[in-house]
């Protein structure tokens, strides 16, 4: 599936909820389903600053495609990063670089995150894109 196909799938899944607590419940499920990150990957280099909770994100390149593992000490944040992993895993680096993450606004995450929290989410995306940029230039 392409990045946009997965985004549409997520929007569809969230469309059944009109209450925020139900959305959070769903996000928590995602968090619980996120594969555990290798403890050795929870390094200061992989730590993303910018929100009240800690987020670790690691990336690997195999056959021209990126795979991500992540973790957070807060479960909502972990759920949000799990959504990003679901979207970007196994995608070509250049598709990641060119992606437009419209799902964030569609499922209401942007308006419901305060500026600092949104920055946390933005920092995660920025980190993912910077991995993609690095691997993209490696490939050339």
């Amino acid at each position, binding site marked *: 599936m392409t990045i946009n196909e997965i985004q549409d799938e997520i929007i569809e899944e969230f469309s059944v909820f009109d209450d*925020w607590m139900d959305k959070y419940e769903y996000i928590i499920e995602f968090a619980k389903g996120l594969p555990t990150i290798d403890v050795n990957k929870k390094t200061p280099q992989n730590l993303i600053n910018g*929100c009240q*909770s800690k987020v670790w994100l690691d990336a690997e390149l195999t056959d021209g495609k990126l795979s991500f593992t992540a973790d957070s000490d807060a479960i909502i944040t972990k759920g949000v990063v799990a959504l990003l992993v679901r979207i970007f895993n196994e995608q070509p680096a250049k598709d990641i670089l060119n992606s437009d993450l419209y799902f964030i606004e569609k499922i209401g995450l942007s308006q419901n995150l305060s500026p600092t929290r949104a920055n946390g989410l933005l920092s995660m995306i920025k980190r993912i894109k910077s991995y993609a940029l690095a691997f993209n230039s490696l490939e050339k």
Partner: protein
Amino acid sequence: MQKSIDELRKDFPILSQKVYGKPLIYLDNGATSQKPLTINSNIHRGVHFLSGEMTNAYEKARATIQKFINAKLSEEIIFTKGATDSINLVAFSFGERFVNEGDEIIVSEMEHHANIIPWQILCERKKAILKVLPITDEGELIISELGSLITSKTKLLAVAHTSNVLGTINPIKEIIEQAHKQNVPVLVDGSQAILHSKIDVIDLDADFYVFSGHKMYAPTGIGILYGKKELLNKIPPYQGGGDMVDTVSFEKTTYAELPFKFEAGTSNFVGAVALAKASEYIESIGFEFISEREHELLHYATQKMLEIKGLKIYGTSKKKSSIISFLVENIHAYDMGLMLDKMGIAVRTGSHCAQPLMKRLGIDGTIRASFSFYNTKEEIDFLIKGIERIRKMIND
């Protein structure tokens, strides 16, 4: 006659607001108290004052605050931007006059960053040493260590009256008495205390007492520095500008008398009047009523919270203000705060500008519910239900 809580709540328009379609339950009073109608309408009137009346109103506001904290003289009341500004003023001016290389300043382990960083800046500037009065696991200052912590090099003790995280009400009179025995003046950060009980700076014998308007039903951007006249007279101005001078020439400028020496630039007249109005509002409700009511809410919330599986309260001093910091086992403070917010419950999460205290407690942050007299037991019940729902969602 005392108004009922329902009637009093009508003084605060925001309390009937809805967030995410749910009634707002405002439990972040430790950060900013809401504004009663009387203050809002007063600010509006402010712009119509003419210059002369403005000065009168400003000086009348100063006299009102003087009475409010029982200061001896009105010139001992300096209008500032807030508690942070007041502390920075003292750290600069007192530091300039009295602190030299190798001298010591003492703060406590439970301080807000505002009562740590200005002293660190001073210590760096003057090559002085910052020392720390520790706390117990219950969140009380270890006052028995104060005697040995103070040396002949100690120039000032800066300590909170009430902790913004733990809620601990420090025995400030006893602390000041002990420091004075060793000839050390004391600055008290009264930000969390000013709203909850009558402050009497003469009885406390505080050398400096600071607080912010926005924590006592007044707007942001206005606050107070109280200082003993003889001390304020000895220390140099903090900022230069208009209104703080006697005569100015390029060769030599002489400064105005107290309090104007410390009030450079155009005064926050509107803020000062609103602050005085807020203090009158508080007195019209009465500290006896406020503290009784807040104590009841604190007791009720504490009991209910302790029934929640895995909930731990940080700050269990016997003398507490209506602040409860807590965590629930396996749940990040951020998750709890985010979800309570969506239920319409406003609490604070994070380190509460007290990272050294968090380090002492061995945690990254807490969730803090802080109650004002206008909160109700029904709101606390709603908070408890919310915490319980989130606990089940994450832990079960």
